[in-house]
């Protein structure tokens, strides 16, 4: 291609593949050859459509948004569909009449849902499931149905039992409806799973409160007293509050069709293996492309097409390879693991099938091998897909072991060395084992580093276990050592301290460490000892382990003074309490500020003033707020039913109870919480380590959120639980976190690093899969029973009080370096000069 600077590239469609194409062009086009205009029909930025149903269990539309390509060479023109294409003039026109001239045009319009032509399909209450707007409409209708004043269960009919249909059913179930799935094929997921796998899948999803009808179709839909009746081909009538069509997709190829471009037999813009149409200026990628006649409804082949076109636009010669068209999938359908890879349905002539079917355990596994039983061609896994990460990359390679042993329970465990270098480990991004191994050799020594430099594991994540195996195999030892004094991790140290009964740092380091300790291991051990209930944090040797904040039970500020925060549970405070805080601050010359956790921080206290300040506060009924500790900080709340017209539960009452229950609880990092009285979420509970949101029936519990450097929304752990069940769950969650997290690891990072993530956490603390819940709850009960105020503990102990002096030889002389000036009516520190110490 000739180097014409300033050529115009127009991309029609702003879905996942269109977005990837823009990214791929910008990554390669360092000379700025192409100016890119993206025309999107939806008004919002590109988002992860594959994760659509996660919007129902807590994610917001923003969570799904793909990283923006912010670049002066890229213009987004959204909320305005392209409606006409003039190939002679090389111009695209949009619905609003805007015109865009192109040197190259990439069609990435995706597809539209296929709605079978049944009578009544346009009635109110009938929906399709493809975009965020579709989902919003479904959610609103489900909410109306649930709120309708009538008895009986709310139900929905899902037309189509494929991948999309089961996703829709999952979303509907989470919205409180009973879904009934109608699939015209004799089994669920007919494109991915064979008959045996389909039968196991059906049994597993039916046990998840889902009704399945296979081998029938919907023939009509009628309205009946505000509800819908779907009549099936076998005469059965299903009544439903809503009907969702997810019976497949059709390429959105209207623009190409009207412009006279040739289409595939089953629709789609016909393109060659370079994704180019017969018009040399027009390309197609993703679901709208009929690549050599065939369309692909998965994102991975779409991404591969985007990469090919980007390469071609910049003068490359890339073409699609069979590996790029890999339609392997692994997913969790309503809690059931399903994987399908390679020639799953054994369409290769002479292919042999090896099946291990265990209906009792609820698992089905099949491998498809070549007629000489030497090469793996594909397979299906239902119920347990843990072997997917190892098996899929082996497709097309010689079998490393007996195929039955490879899928039988207790059979051979394949290591990473079974894979050839050419095997594609990450099929979403087409990354081979060879590429990952050379990244490891170049210094990528953990999974995040591999993700950053190869993009492997960044899309669906199913290959992450294989990335870990490759790391292990390459001999990269991931050090868990806490610091130079302890070769074990914080979690292991916790086990050691809990198991051995050792209660002093000296004894611990003598037996399990080396040296004298440092500012990493000492506070970590101090926190573990505190979590195990070893008395006041300043008792005996423990005092020497504490970070300065914990040592002075206050927060060190930049000029060497401290700030003081009394606990104000749930943010609820009496006028007398406010007056006390005001008087204390005034009398000690402290600066006051309202904190984000609904309490009051008093700044500028000198060490020797702290006991006198606490004395006044404690006498007025206050206690330490633990603002200085890696500990429970606050449980923020909105006013709830007591005052709010919209509140559904007493959020303040619960927040106060929770804060009093967990006050003083020390943890690997600070813990923040919130309680909102309704879904309007005024307490911002989802930005907390644990957040509770009231529902009509009880409480929803969210875990793993935080603000800060990397903000993250908490994920739904349990819904509609009553107060007792809620408290048990939080007890278990916090204790499990305290016992197993790394030092300074917030709950979000802890869950993310856990093998199995949120699902594993749920298994442990909701389903008690490890049998430790009773123990966790007992540990929390012990904490609650042994709590005492740390400030009062100092005030009542002359030996501890003795440490709160400015100078050991001049106890009441203020530190001469500290001084204040007045700003906006309050004292603020005079900036400190730095001594000339540099050589």
């Amino acid at each position, binding site marked *: 291609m000739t180097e014409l600077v300033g050529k115009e590239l127009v991309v029609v469609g702003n879905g996942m593949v269109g977005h990837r194409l823009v990214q791929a062009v910008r990554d390669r086009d360092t000379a700025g050859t192409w100016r890119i205009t993206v025309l999107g029909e939806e008004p919002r930025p590109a988002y992860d459509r594959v994760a659509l149903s996660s919007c129902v269990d807590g994610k917001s539309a923003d969570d799904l948004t793909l990283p923006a390509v912010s670049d002066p060479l890229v213009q987004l023109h959204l909320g305005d569909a392209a409606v006409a294409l003039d190939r002679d003039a090389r111009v695209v026109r949009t619905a609003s009449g805007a015109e865009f001239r192109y040197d190259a045009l990439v069609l990435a319009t995706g597809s539209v849902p296929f709605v079978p032509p049944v009578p009544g399909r346009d009635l109110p209450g009938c929906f399709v499931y493809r975009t965020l707007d579709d989902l919003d409409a479904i959610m609103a209708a489900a909410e109306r149905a649930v709120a309708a004043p009538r008895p009986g269960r709310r139900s929905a009919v899902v037309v189509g039992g494929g991948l999309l249909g089961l996703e829709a059913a999952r979303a509907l179930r989470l919205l409180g409806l009973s879904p009934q799935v109608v699939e015209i094929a004799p089994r669920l997921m007919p494109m991915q799973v064979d008959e045996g796998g389909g039968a196991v899948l059906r049994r597993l999803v039916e046990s998840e409160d889902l009704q399945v009808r296979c081998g029938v179709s919907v023939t009509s839909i009628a309205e009946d007293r505000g509800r819908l009746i779907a009549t099936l081909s076998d005469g059965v009538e299903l009544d439903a509050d809503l009907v969702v069509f997810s019976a497949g997709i059709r390429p959105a190829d209207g623009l190409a069709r009207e412009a006279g471009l040739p289409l595939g037999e089953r629709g789609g813009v016909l393109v060659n293996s370079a994704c180019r149409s017969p018009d040399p200026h027009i390309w197609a990628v993703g679901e709208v492309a009929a690549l050599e006649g065939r369309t692909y409804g998965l994102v991975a082949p779409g991404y591969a097409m985007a990469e090919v076109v980007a390469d071609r636009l910049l003068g490359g010669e890339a073409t699609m390879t069979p590996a790029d068209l890999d339609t392997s999938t692994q997913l969790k359908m309503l809690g059931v693991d399903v994987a399908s890879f390679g020639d799953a349905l054994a369409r290769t002539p002479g292919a042999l099938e090896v099946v291990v079917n265990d209906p009792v355990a609820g698992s089905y596994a099949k491998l498809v091998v070549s007629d000489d039983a030497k090469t793996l061609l594909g397979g299906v896994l239902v119920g347990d897909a843990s072997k997917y990460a190892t098996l899929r990359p082996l497709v097309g390679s010689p079998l490393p072991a007996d195929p039955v042993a490879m899928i039988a329970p207790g059979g051979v465990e394949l290591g990473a060395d079974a894979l050839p270098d050419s095997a594609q480990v990450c099929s979403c991004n087409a990354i081979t084992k060879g590429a990952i191994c050379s990244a490891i050799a170049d210094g990528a020594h953990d999974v995040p580093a591999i993700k950053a430099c190869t993009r492997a594991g960044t899309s669906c994540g199913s290959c992450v276990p294989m990335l870990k195996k490759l790391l292990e195999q390459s001999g990269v030892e991931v050090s868990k050592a806490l610091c130079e004094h302890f070769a074990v991790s914080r979690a292991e140290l916790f086990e050691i301290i809990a198991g051995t009964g050792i209660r002093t740092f000296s004894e611990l380091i003598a037996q399990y460490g080396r040296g*004298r300790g*440092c*500012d990493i291991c000492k506070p970590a051990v101090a926190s573990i000892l505190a979590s195990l209930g070893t008395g006041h944090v300043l008792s005996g040797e423990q005092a020497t382990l504490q970070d300065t904040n914990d040592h002075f039970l206050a927060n060190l500020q*930049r*000029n060497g003074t401290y700030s003081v925060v009394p606990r104000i549970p749930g943010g609820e405070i009496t006028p007398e309490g406010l007056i006390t805080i005001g008087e204390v601050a005034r009398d000690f010359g402290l600066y006051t500020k309202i904190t984000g956790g609904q309490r009051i921080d008093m700044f500028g206290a000198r060490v020797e003033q702290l006991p006198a300040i606490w004395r006044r506060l404690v006498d007025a009924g206050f206690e330490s707020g633990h603002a200085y500790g890696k500990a429970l900080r606050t449980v923020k709340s909105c006013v709830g039913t007591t005052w709010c017209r919209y509140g559904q539960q007493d959020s303040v009452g619960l927040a106060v109870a929770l804060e009093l229950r967990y006050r003083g609880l020390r943890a690997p990092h600070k813990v923040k919480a919130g309680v909102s009285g309704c879904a309007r979420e005024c307490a911002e509970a989802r930005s907390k380590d644990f957040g509770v949101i009231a529902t009509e029936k009880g409480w929803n519990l969210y875990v793993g959120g935080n603000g800060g450097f990397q903000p993250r929304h908490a994920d739904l752990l349990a819904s509609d639980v009553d107060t007792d069940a809620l408290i048990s769950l939080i007890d278990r969650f916090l204790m499990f976190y305290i016992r197993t997290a790394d030092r300074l690891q917030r709950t979000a990072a802890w869950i993310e690093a856990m093998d199995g993530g949120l699902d594993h956490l749920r298994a442990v603390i909701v389903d008690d899969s490890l049998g430790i819940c009773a123990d966790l709850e007992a540990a929390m009960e012990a904490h609650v029973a042994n709590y005492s105020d740390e400030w009062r503990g100092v005030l009542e102990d002359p030996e501890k009080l003795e440490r709160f002096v400015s*100078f050991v*030889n001049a106890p009441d002389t203020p530190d001469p370096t500290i001084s204040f000036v007045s700003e906006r009516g309050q004292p603020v520190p005079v900036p*400190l000069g730095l001594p000339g110490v540099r*050589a």
Partner: protein
Amino acid sequence: MTAETIHTAGTVHDAPSDIRWETVCLLDRLLPERGAAALLAAGGEPVQVALFRMVDDTVHAIGNIDPFSGAAVLSRGIVGDRGGVPIVASPVYKQAFNLITGQCLDDPDVRVPVYPVRIADGWLQVGIP
């Protein structure tokens, strides 16, 4: 004064002859491996010294001002070791300082003053130039 010992933990503590010894407190007033600040005077100017009693009852004295923040807080840091070198970690931005030489381990160009220390009859004394 009887039972006088000069702690010379490393050669840098070799005390010059014209230093003045100021008595600070009884040794037992200091908690092992936990610092304390003392206010002394050198030529009429106030000097803040951070004192650290180790488990073997030796005592180190360094300047109390943290050179990275300007705050007089080094006595409030956590005491420990790095590769066997006794250190205190500044409580402000966590840089480690060698308790024997005053040198910062994280930025070798930075150094805080060190002072000689001796124990006389259970009394801790710091040598001021």
